[in-house]
Each structure stands twice: as structure tokens, then as C-alpha cells.
């Protein structure tokens, strides 16, 4: 069977897109890696866990409930590894249905085909490397929110929270609420930056109020808040024991640190959609029209994976992508676009926060030479700069010169910093050094899982070359 629409990613954008398309009568399948839909912000706790629901949880539950009754085929716990179809066809052939190969929650391989594909792949965290960031006990800020909100778990007893963006204050407040202590909050942004962001934040009084509550909690707990500061080193024997911020040293058993969010564009790159480098959107993003279309016919993108605007803005973008897809597929839609002012406010606030979380070139410039940038392959800043001097001029060539980005994470963790370092060493913009080519598998896949049962005789070995 060929679906009308496949939605890749079950965060707020994906849940809303699948719901909207299925409600309109399309045959829809949603593929999600986690055991339940939700994404990172609206992530649900595991079955059997009950914790006091917060606002995010309630919004996530509403989206989950709507999705559950939408009629969409929801496949969670599956790992999508193969992408094909669409424009990925031999020369001269018409575009094919999109084809996604995956492993189900039960480990069984399956493939879905669909006429249209909506990418709602979200983001991953940006970490600007610093000495000791690979030490156990150092985790991402988004990682900390997952532990706190979806696992009911403190990252440590005494935690340093550091980086940029509103997540800092949310994580610190939740650690305090969960009974942990916060040794320090280290905010890369100055108070002046927050002041400049204020006008955009007033569009969302609810968030402003939330932020005020968080800050009050920190104040009450006498947490040192260091503005315009950054972690200079994480140190410890085997595991983290203390965090240096310039001259100051904080004892800590966990450091939660993140410098913003990076759109996950592996799939849109694999489908060869046009991308642009927009630091204010998080980095490389697929180029979209006003109705969420990428440059590839019947391929759409929505949510933070198409440019960071936050979870609140994502469902509307997902719904718009779904309506556009159905329109392009020839469905007649009963209701027209009805995006409201709330969406515009959410987008405005999201954009202000995204700017706050954009890559900070000064922070990259301050990375010491011997710091590991690519933790999969152990490549340091000095090695990247040496490669730049030796002639590496693009991110793909940097991989060849240094193996930076060739490990299991495929540059997802180091790509931003490596790109900024290479661009800076070459004296060009990040846009000039390009992005890494997208290739399957979308995520590392265990060979044993994809092999399945097969007979040697059934392997379709092509004809041999002439002798």
C-alpha cells in the first residue's frame, strides 16, 4: 500500500501534521523513534511513571490525544534507516513515491511508501567544546530536561547548569524542585542580551511569568548566577568533580551544558533539498516556501528541524505542512488556513530565543587548541586548523583530512563547531564551507537487525565485471 503522507518524527510538529492530514481523510503514517510520540519538549514519561504534570506535559498530552484518534497509523519505537524514492531516481525517470526503510519496535524490518513526506525531525543540541566536555558527568541541557521531565531523575546532587537560552533557567529550576542543588548557573548571555530580547518575550506573557518564577526560585536558593560567562573546563578523575568558570571553581557531580539547538537536516540533505545557512535559525536549514514546501516536490519540513522556533510554534507549522501536502496531492480541503495571532506570537518569541541560542563565534574562538572537537574520532581544534592550513577548504574535505565527523554520530555533535573553526581558519563564512552530504543510514543500524533471514542463493548478486 502507498500512503498519501508519511510523517517522519513525532514531536509537536509531526504529531500535528499527522493529525491534520489524517483528519482530512488522507492515509497517513507517522514514524517515531521514541516509545511514544511527543518529541523532546513534550516527551511523555514511560508507562507506569506518574509525576506532577507541567504545562509542557499538558500540551503534549493534548497533541497525543488528538493524534491517537486521528486515524493515522502511528509507529513508535522504530528506527528509520533507509531513505529513497522522491527525487532519488535514475536520470530521466519521474519522481517515485517516497520510501522509508525502518526497524519496528519489535525489531522487524519494514518499509513504508508514501506520495508525500513531511519531515519533522526536530533538533539536536549544540555544544561548543571546552576542555573536559567528554568527561562522564557532563551532559547536554536538553539531555537534562529529558532526565528531569521524562525520567523523574536528577542529573546530579550538585549541578552546574551552563550555556545559552531559556533552557538554562528551566533546568536549574527543575533540579531545585526535584531536591537537587545548583552549584552555579553560567549564562553565556549578558543581562543586556536578555533585556534586548524582552520586547519579543512580551508577546508571550505566560513564558515571561514562567521565567520570572524560575529566576525567583534560583534567587531563593541563593544560586550564583554568572551572566556573560562560560565554563572554561570540566575536571575530575574518571568522572566530573568540579567545573571551572574562569577563576572560580565549583564542586559538582554533574554539568548540564548546551549552547543552542541545531536543526536535524539529515533527511532533507539526503533528499538533496536546497539548504541555506541561517545562524539565527540554528544553522543549516532546508529552504522553505511560505507553505512549508522544500525545494523537492512533495517533500515538506516543519517544526524546529526547519529552523528553531520552539515547541509552541511547531504544531501550527506541522498543520500547515499537512494542508499544503494534501493540496499538492489534489485533496480538496474543507477548511482553509486559519493560523491565528497566537502562532505569530509564538514564532516571534521562538525567534528571539533562537537568536539567543545561535552559535556564538566568540565562544568558538576561545576554544583552546588541544580541546577535542569531534569526540567520536578524537579530533582536536589544532588538528582542524592544521588541516585548514594544509588545504582542507570544505567540511566534506575536512572529514577526509582529519576523520572529523566520520564516526558514529556522523558529525551531529561536532559539525557546528568544526564548521565554524574551519570557516574561521580559512577566513570565509560557514556557508562557504558547506554541509556534509546526507547518506543512509539515517541513524547507525545494527547489522544483525537489518539483515533478516536470507539464503545465500537469494542475494541478488549483480553480474561480474569482465575479466
Amino acid at each position: 500500500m502507498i500512503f498519501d503522507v508519511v510523517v517522519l518524527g513525532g514531536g509537536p510538529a509531526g504529531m500535528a501534521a499527522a493529525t491534520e492530514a489524517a483528519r482530512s481523510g488522507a492515509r497517513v503514517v507517522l514514524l517515531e523513534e521514541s516509545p511514544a510520540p511527543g518529541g523532546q519538549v513534550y516527551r511523555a514519561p514511560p508507562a507506569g511513571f506518574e509525576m506532577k504534570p507541567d504545562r509542557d506535559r499538558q500540551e503534549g498530552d493534548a497533541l497525543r490525544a488528538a493524534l491517537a484518534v486521528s486515524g493515522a497509523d502511528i509507529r513508535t519505537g522504530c528506527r528509520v534507516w533507509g531513505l529513497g524514492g522522491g527525487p532519488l531516481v535514475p536520470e530521466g525517470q519521474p519522481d517515485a513515491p517516497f520510501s522509508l526503510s525502518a526497524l519496528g519496535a519489535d525489531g522487524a524490518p519494514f518499509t513504508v511508501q508514501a506520495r508525500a513526506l513531511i519531515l519533522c525531525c526536530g533538533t539536536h543540541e549544540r555544544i561548543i567544546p571546552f576542555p573536559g566536555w567528554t568527561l562522564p558527568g557532563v551532559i547536554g541541557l536538553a539531555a537534562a530536561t529529558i532526565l528531569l521531565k521524562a525520567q523523574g531523575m536528577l542529573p546530579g546532587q550538585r549541578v552546574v547548569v551552563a550555556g545559552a537560552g531559556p533552557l538554562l533557567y528551566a533546568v536549574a529550576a527543575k533540579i531545585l524542585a526535584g531536591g537537587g542543588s545548583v552549584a552555579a548557573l553560567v549564562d553565556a548571555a549578558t543581562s543586556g542580551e536578555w533585556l534586548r530580547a524582552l520586547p519579543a518575550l512580551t508577546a508571550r506573557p505566560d513564558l515571561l511569568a514562567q521565567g520570572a518564577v524560575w529566576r525567583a526560585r534560583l534567587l531563593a536558593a541563593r544560586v550564583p548566577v554568572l551572566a556573560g560567562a562560560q565554563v572554561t573546563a570540566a575536571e575530575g578523575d574518571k568522572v566530573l568533580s568540579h567545573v571551572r568558570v574562569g577563576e572560580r571553581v565549583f564542586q559538582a557531580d554533574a554539568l548540564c551544558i548546551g549552547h543552542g539547538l541545531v536543526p536535524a537536516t539529515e533527511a532533507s540533505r539526503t533528499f538533496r533539498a536546497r539548504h541555506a545557512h541561517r545562524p539565527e535559525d540554528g544553522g543549516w536549514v532546508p529552504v522553505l516556501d511560505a507553505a512549508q514546501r522544500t525545494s523537492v516536490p512533495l517533500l515538506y519540513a516543519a517544526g524546529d528541524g526547519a529552523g528553531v522556533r520552539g515547541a509552541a510554534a511547531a504544531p501550527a507549522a506541522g498543520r500547515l505542512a499537512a494542508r499544503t501536502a494534501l493540496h499538492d496531492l489534489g485533496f480538496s480541503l474543507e477548511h482553509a488556513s486559519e493560523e491565528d495571532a497566537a502562532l505569530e506570537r509564538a514564532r516571534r518569541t521562538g525567534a528571539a530565543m533562537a537568536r539567543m541560542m545561535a552559535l556564538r563565534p566568540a565562544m568558538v574562538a576561545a576554544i583552546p587548541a588541544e580541546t577535542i572537537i569531534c569526540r567520536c574520532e578524537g579530533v582536536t581544534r589544532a588538528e582542524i586548523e592544521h588541516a585548514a592550513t594544509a588545504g582542507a577548504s570544505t567540511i566534506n574535505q575536512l572529514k577526509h583530512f582529519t576523520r572529523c565527523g566520520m564516526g558514529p554520530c556522523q558529525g551531529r555533535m561536532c559539525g557546528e563547531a568544526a564548521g565554524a573553526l574551519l570557516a574561521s581558519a580559512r577566513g570565509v563564512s560557514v556557508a562557504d564551507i558547506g554541509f556534509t552530504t546526507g547518506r543512509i543510514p539515517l541513524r547507525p543500524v545494527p547489522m544483525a537487525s537489518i539483515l533478516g533471514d536470507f539464503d545465500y542463493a537469494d542475494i541478488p548478486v549483480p553480474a561480474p565485471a569482465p575479466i
Partner: protein
Amino acid sequence: MKTRFDVAVIGAGVMGCATALFLARGGMRVVLLDRGEICREASGVNAGTLTMQMTRAALIPYALRAHDMWMNMPAWCAGGDVLATACPGLSVAFTDAEAAMLEERARIRRAAGAPIELIDGRAAQAIEPGLADGVKLAGHCPIDGFASAYLTGRAFRAALQEAGVTLMEATPVRGIDGRFVLDTPAGAVAAQRVVLAGGVWLQDMAAWLGVTLPIKVLINQLVVTERMPPVMRTVLGVASGLLSLKQYANGTVLIGGGWQGIGDRTRGGVAVRSDNFLGNVRLAAHTVPALRQARVVRSWLGLEAETADALPAIGPIPGIDDAWIIGSVHSGYTSGPYMGRILAQAILGEAPELPLFPIDRLLHQRSNSA
């Protein structure tokens, strides 16, 4: 137009680089141009297999000499290194039909100079403990090995600069006027001689000179695993040649063999086909069962050129003085540096150590417009 070079080499893959390097060392003023970056197409993304058992029989004498060059690369390439590693090679047969193919191919390759012996499955497992049971027959070649192809550009770059080659990356040649003025976005580049070394784009390059040289494009898929504990110690293939396997010092296992993906001359490598990806890794896991423990992290594509008779195009371009061509060498990485060396010998007016592969045989029609 600032300088007139003695020779312009168009295409900075392994053959273009080697030709340029040896021409410069022979005293010529050389410019080497590439529309992209040095060794970033087939020369930088191939499987790095340095084996006689996938090499066409006619190329074995060349591949043997190139094998020696790869193993000693730092000595002739100003320290440039692709981490070439010598190891035994095995080509295995699981069925009677494959055994028959293996026997015939081993005999032909042996006659061409490759020291291939046929052994049984047990003997093959003694050489390669990672090999699966059920091997009926294996070809064993002690002269084999592999390299890290992605290092090729880095390895050549310093040597080219040391030899005085002017390297112009990201400089697409758009056409050739007269004898020989290359039209590029960086301005005109003039040279006394021209060498076309453009891999699958040789067909387009030959057309600049009014020469019709059909070049077929193979879209070879490759797959690599995550680092894993040692599971094999040879270069391993199957009788049909549709598998190449090797484990690098860092623990990654590279799975190749020429399964076809989607792509073309215009768009380059477009996409890895999931079905061929699966077929390729199944063949790999059947041959080395421990690969079932691996995770696959990446696949990619390399474009290989092939002439009508699948033999190389290396020599002068008929009818156009001082225009030369090099490419379309089957398993071209294996023989590449040696091919560059002998073409450079010919251009320098010396007798090549081994014969070139003139393209007269491949030309159906030709105009004299150039």
C-alpha cells in the same frame, strides 16, 4: 593571461595528481585544475582495495607495480601517506558455479602475473579466521592490501606543492579554446599541452576537443561499519568480484564490491539504493559472520568510468598534438599512481615502462574542429 604552463592537467584525482607530480618532477611547469577539491570524487571515496583479484587481467602488470608504489608512497610522495597496508587477499567461492568462475579467473590472472593459488575452505580459514564455513574454493594472493582512500588528496597535496605544481581547486574548466587556452571562472589558463584526467567526466572533456569518447558511468556503493574489535585480517572478496571487505587499523570495516546506486554524470552520486545496500551487507555478513555484530554508520557513492571495452583510456588524443588523456581504468585506484607515472614518461618524451592504452580503438567519429 599571466603564465603559459608547459602542461595543464584537468582533473585532480589520483591519475591527474600522479601525472602532474611526475611531469613537474620531469621539469615541466604544471597546472592542475579541478572543479572541486583534490581527490574528492572516485579517488577519495573508493574502497581503497589494492588487490590483484579484482583487477582485470590486462592490468595486472600495472597493478603489481602500483601496489609497490602505494606501499612505499611516503618515499615518492614527499611523505604523503594513505596508510597502505599489505596483507593477503582471498577471493572465495560458496557455490560450484562460483568455484568454476574462480578457477577460470585465477588461471587467467596467474597467467598475467598475479601469484594467485587456489586453496580449499579450510586453508582459507587458516589465512582468514574470520571467514565463514562453507567456502568451496578460494583464490589466495599474497600480494594484496588496502589503503585509506580518503587520505589520498591530503597525501598528494603537499607533494604537488613541493614539486611546484600550481594547484587550482574549485576551478571548473568550461571549455578549451585553441591550443590550449582553458576557459575557467578564474580567467583563461594557457598551456602548451593538455591532459584530460576527469574520471567519468572524460566524455565531456573529450567533447571540448571535438572528440567523441563514450564513457559509461558506474555508481558504486560503499558501506562502512562502526569501529569494532578485530574480525578479519585479509582483503576479502567473492569470486564474482561483487564484494570487497577489509578492516582498518581503527576497527572500521569497509564493505564494497561495486553494487550500484543512483547517479549520473550530471548530478553525481544521487543516492544509495536501500535494496542494494542490503544485498551488499548480506553478502558481507555471509562471508564474515562476525560482521553481524557491527553497526553500519554510513554509506556513500563513488563514480567509476568505463570505456566500451572496459579497458583504460591512456595515451595521446589522436589528431590533436600535445593533447593526452588518462582514465577509465577498471579498479582505477589500485593501478592509478603507476598509470600516472607512465603517462608522464610518454609526455616527457621517454619510453613508458609499460605500454599505454591508446584510445584510437574507442573513437567512432572525430571532428577536427580543435
